[in-house]
């Protein structure tokens, strides 16, 4: 292992998640120990696709409905056009032989990238461990990230 990289994935958009996983996988393939922290909207990237209408109360249910679909259905940060932009972007990426987010996630796990999830958004969205994909290693707090990032040569916030 040559060095560490810590990446905070704050966003749940397709374009930003692609960027995060491209860098994470390049770092892991370069022998780095890579940790990804999914915080705030980023939690949606590691949610199970079938998790719909989770939680109790109107707002968590509203959130879970409008952010449903998991890593394979992420919206675009620009030109999403109620999902049409995301659909066209995924199609375009496939035509250009660019890996999808789920494909890159599988590579990330194969290369030993750790997936950690921030605790606060779990509470806000009323999510439980079983609402997240199996690949998630742990649910942690900010101090855990600070300790990881302090020993990292590369830290990113995407």
């Amino acid at each position: 292992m040559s060095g560490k990289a810590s990446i905070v994935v704050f966003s749940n958009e397709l374009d930003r998640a692609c960027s995060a996983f491209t860098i994470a996988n390049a770092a892991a393939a370069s022998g780095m120990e890579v940790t990804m922290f999914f915080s705030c909207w980023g939690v949606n990237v590691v949610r199970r696709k079938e998790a719909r209408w989770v939680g109790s109360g109107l707002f968590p249910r509203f959130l879970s409905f409008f952010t449903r679909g998991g890593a394979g259905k992420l919206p675009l940060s620009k030109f999403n056009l109620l999902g049409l932009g995301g659909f066209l972007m995924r199609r375009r990426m496939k035509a250009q032989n660019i890996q999808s987010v789920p494909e890159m996630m599988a590579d990330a796990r194969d290369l030993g990238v750790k997936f950690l999830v921030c605790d606060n958004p779990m509470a806000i969205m009323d999510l439980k461990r079983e609402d997240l994909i199996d690949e998630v290693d742990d649910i942690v707090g900010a101090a855990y990230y600070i300790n990881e990032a302090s020993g990292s040569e590369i830290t990113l916030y995407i």
Partner: protein
Amino acid sequence: MTPDLVLDCSGMRCPRPIVEMAKAMRRMGPGQVLELLVTDPVAKKDVPAWCQKTGNEFLDEEETSGHFKFHVRKQG
């Protein structure tokens, strides 16, 4: 040069050739040579950079009409 392993990443785009190369290297022994075939032109920059970062030895590259061939020796 006779490589110990040939890895065809033609058609794949960044970062996949690097990811596949790193995976292939796990199956190889120290001193063995990997031949990497790619069509993504950024590999010309990425493969030497990856070698520099990982300590593997970049041996040579060859280009024939959009097809790149690299030889990399796994560090001993």
